[in-house]
């Protein structure tokens, strides 16, 4: 019985590709980083705060701007934006101290957790976005 159980677990382990396992770890790390760096404002459940801080949960803005998310986290955002039909105008501060990897993990977590349908963003496109974003700011 025990042997069967081991076999079963081994099967499960190998049924996930390496890439999926890595991304699970990244999402977990992203969840921790989200709690530290994002949840004060956007709240743990991504609901935002009244009309001051926009929600991430089921946010149309997040889905439409998923490709810019790494850059928004890195550089912050200023000016009016429309989220789910409401206008928000609170400045989001930059997070210059976060490493490229940490930003990547936060993106993976946020895009997995908050949209109605999880968005899978390939790691290289996040990297590209970050480089593009840094190049633009200099």
């Amino acid at each position, binding site marked *: 019985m025990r042997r069967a159980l081991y076999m079963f677990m081994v099967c499960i382990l190998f049924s996930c590709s390496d890439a999926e396992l890595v991304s699970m770890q990244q999402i977990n790390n992203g969840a921790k980083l989200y709690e530290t760096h994002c949840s*004060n*404002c956007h*709240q743990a459940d991504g609901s935002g*705060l*009244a*009309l*001051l*801080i926009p929600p991430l949960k089921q946010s149309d803005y997040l889905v439409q701007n998923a490709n810019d998310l790494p850059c928004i986290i890195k550089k912050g955002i200023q000016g009016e934006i429309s989220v789910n039909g409401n206008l928000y*105008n*609170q*400045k989001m*501060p930059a997070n210059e101290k976060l490493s490229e990897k940490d930003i990547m993990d936060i993106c993976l977590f946020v895009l997995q957790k908050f949209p109605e349908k999880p968005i899978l963003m390939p790691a290289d496109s996040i990297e590209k976005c970050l480089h593009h974003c840094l190049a633009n700011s200099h």
Partner: protein
Amino acid sequence: MKHLIYLTSLLLFIACKQNKSLPILGERSLTSRVVNGETLIDTVYATVPTFSLLNQDADTVTESLVKGKIYVADFFFTSCPTICPIMKREMLRVYEKIKGDPSFVLLSHTIDPAFDSIPLLKDYANRLGSDGKQWQFLTGDREQIYELAEKGYYATAMPDSTEPGGYIHSGGFILVDPKSRVRGIYNGTDSKEVDQLMEDLFILKSEIQ
């Protein structure tokens, strides 16, 4: 016999629960006065000093606004990236609880009056869903606000360039009774403490009725 002891303890427990009263915080002193040839000793409690600030509608707000009322004070700034949004989420819960009851007022003081202009505070208040009357957003002379925070409400508020956002401040919600005496300080970032505050608001209300 055993049952009797249990019953008595239970009764005592219930009796104590119902008579819960809130402490009066701050230094106190004694004064004596002579009435009909007898010397009486009175306790004088610390009170929040008088103040003159402006609210989000540019109206002057002084201690007379909260005279005879129970109020909660806190300190924040609109561009604060750390604890303020959590404090405001919690204060919003308190606001929902007391809305429409004229016994209560909430006063949120900005500690960054240079940046938090009156129109900015007005916008902030609107976006939070405050009516601007029962929950007011106050600004004014920076030194006056810091002194009020420290001496009146036992809170910390000062610029600190090492902090994200540029200020250090305590996340306390300060409960003040109708005689301007501080009756409790609660951590405004902790939902459980804010639950306690919401209970204590009504304990204080029953005290004055």
